[in-house]
């Protein structure tokens, strides 16, 4: 039988960790929400349009990609649906987004664990891009 003190300890740890995460999540969430309503994301995605060709995606696919990178996967999927991509294209954009998404939020949380995060973000973006190039050639 597990003593009650164990459960209480777990509960207290849970509260403390939730609080630590809250301190990161709330400011980032608020900033990203504001960012979503500025012209910044459409501006970035417009400049990314030429890059889309390299991975076999139409230019418009840069918007869901940027939304996924900066906001989250749900925002990205909402923007993918109206594009009428084929299975291959959906697989390519899915791979890019699964490797890199919600970057402000996830990176802030990574940083909270005490590591340097710049390399991690760059790596996620580069690996996602490399995989997309590979998928475009091989599938």
């Amino acid at each position, binding site marked *: 039988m*597990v*003593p009650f003190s*164990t*459960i209480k*300890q*777990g*509960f207290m*740890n*849970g*509260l*403390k*960790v*939730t609080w*630590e*995460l*809250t301190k990161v*999540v*709330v400011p980032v*969430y*608020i900033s990203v*929400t*504001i960012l979503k*309503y500025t012209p910044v994301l459409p501006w970035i995605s417009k400049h990314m349009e030429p890059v889309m060709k390299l991975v076999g995606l139409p230019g418009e696919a840069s918007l869901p990609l940027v939304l996924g990178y900066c906001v989250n*996967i*749900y925002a990205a*999927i909402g923007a*993918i*649906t109206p594009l009428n991509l084929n*299975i291959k294209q*959906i*697989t390519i*954009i*899915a*791979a890019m*987004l*699964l*490797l890199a*998404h919600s970057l402000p939020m*996830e990176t802030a*949380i*990574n940083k*909270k*664990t*005490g*590591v340097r*995060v710049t390399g*991690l973000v760059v*790596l*996620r973006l580069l*690996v996602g891009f490399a*995989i997309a190039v590979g998928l475009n050639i091989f*599938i």
Partner: protein
Amino acid sequence: MPYLDIAREAITGSSLNVLKMAAIVIPLMIFVEIFKELNWLDRLTSIMAPITRLIGIPPEGNLPLLSGLIFGISYGSGLIIQSSREGKLTLEDIFLINLFLVMCHSLFEDTLLFAAIGARWVLILILRLIIAISFCSLMSRIYKKRRVYSVTSSNE
């Protein structure tokens, strides 16, 4: 008034996020304490040993790794924060767990979202696992080599 709508979205969205985290983190932490109390960690370690040995993560990293893989980065990180508070993980271990989890996390939820719109999810899942394992084992080898060098140079 669009500003009011944005403010409302920011407040309700972030509160919901915090509540969702609490709803997972608190039971998760209780589960971890029970796990430790019953000494089940050794059993988990032996199950995960083939992978963790490959990627150079010590047994103390199993729970953060597993909860990140299942629930997502926040929860893996939550457990890292807890374990590092207990002084069980080195900064190198923490970096390796982060490295693994940024490539490969929340395997059920995120994968399902893309499966729902028709992506070839099995292929992507396998690729993510291969990428995470390769980068992590490469990095842990670099760490190991560096440690050997620093020991030999301090002996001189």
